[in-house]
């Protein structure tokens, strides 16, 4: 049983440390990803609007 106690203890704390690192990386990286997503969606929307205007002039 001692093997499993040591194994799960080490597993838990290593995972916790990894998760903290992941959280920081994803937090920072995700913020820039969101900015880029909105930039790309805005670009697509304005392209679609232009195409609509070209097809259906006022």
């Amino acid at each position, binding site marked *: 049983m001692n093997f499993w106690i040591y194994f799960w203890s080490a597993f838990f704390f290593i*995972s916790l440390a990894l998760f903290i690192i992941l959280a920081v990386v994803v937090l920072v990286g995700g913020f820039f990803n969101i900015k880029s997503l909105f930039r790309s969606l805005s670009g697509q*929307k304005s392209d679609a609007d232009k195409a609509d205007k070209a097809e259906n002039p006022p």
Partner: protein
Amino acid sequence: MNLSSAGIHTNFTALDWCIVVGYVLAVLALGVYIRKYISTVADFIVAGRGIKTFLGAATMTATELCLVTVMYSAQKGFVGGFAAFHIALAAAIVTFIVGITGFIVVPLRRMNVMTIPEFYEKRFGRNVRILGGTILAFSGILNMGMFIKAAAVFITCVTGLSSPLEMKIIMTALLAVVVIYTTLGGMVSEIVLDYVQFVVLTIGLLLATLLSIRNLGWNNIIETVSSLKGRAGFDPFDTEGFGIAYVVWMFLLGLVSCAVWQTVVIRACAAKDTSTVKRLFMWSSIGFLMRFLLPYFLGICAFVFIAQHETLKSIFIPDTGRPDPQVTLMAMPLFLSQILPAGLIGIVTAGMLAAFMSTHDSYLLCWSAVLTQDVIAPCFKKPLSSKTRLLLVRIFIVCISIFVLIWGLWYPLGEDLWDYMAISGAIYFTGATALLVLGIYWKRASRTGAYLALITGFSAILGLKSVQLRVGINIASEIVGLSVITIAFLLMFLGSRAFPDKNRPVTLGSEQI
């Protein structure tokens, strides 16, 4: 169960209510604001396929770290002790392997599909898509039908609300918020909010974990589990605990939850390209690990806390027989309500509600998209316009929400919640795993084999205890699940050999199979 009559009072205060309500309102405002970025059905369902690695990892973790997972995982930790950690380990290993190899998910992304039934059509034809879509939506909607119930148990225990009417009003309001922002913003709002919720949840869970260790003490946790549960509390192969069949079943579920379950696969389909898909799964393996590990640990801490409290011990850990699952489900939220200080408990509750809403919106969007794209649209000869599809998705979101509310909150369920959820999921994934694996990697897989595998999946319902009682059998659910998936693979193989398709080859993205 009224805990205040047993002398148990929550630390939840007016400040915590302000935090929770403020958070929900902020989420709603964000969903409305994001609406202006939506112009096509692809924007709505897969965010214009513009998701990059870190945002994808955050949203995948947030979607799958749902309140119902936290609740049942904590219950598993409470009942199984440290041995339950093997489920988290299995999930992480399998997700990482899927990330390295791109198993299933990369071919799906290459095909540019939005849903798994769309793959069925490209590989096996339109009718398989309609059948597969119907089974998937049926299984998924039933599966999510119990989310709201789990959320209700959590809120009751943490806030100390004991009136059933108050609970129903709160949960109805929460569901309304989810429906509004999902209907308005689709995948884009969902992804941004998942990111916000990932942040709140991560901070909340980490703080709760660290506080639990500080208050209970690591050595005390180990010693209490050791003295009360013995070897079964640590060794997952111990027959008095989980046993080897359960461990194998968990590895299979690890594969299903990261590569076959539609709500995760839709993230792969929304990724920018196939290399992003691989990176996304490798990073998410840590998220998949923690979505189980932290709640298990909180469940273990709840066990230790309750074991050292005479009144609670007599309720939660009776000397005679196995504790009632409906009672052990309440252990983790009760523990949090006792151990977290005012203010922090509000943040953790907001995080948990975030988890509920995050998953609920993903599932709503996912099943609505499946019903629109895979069941309704293929029935029309003329392709439906983007506008009509968007409208249909939104109508389904509202209809499913009404069903879920009635089913989960107002309908008195007469069976064990966990069995209900596991079996409702297995109805879909046992057949779907065979279709995906053989459909992608075996060029001779045929339409007949696909039908046989999908129909076989239905027999997973035999894992439900109430069905077993009616038909007079008693088999562990992991044995039923493993048997059904084996039979599904076997029948698909035999059916494909006996009745091969006449029209081949089928193209899979840029490759030919």
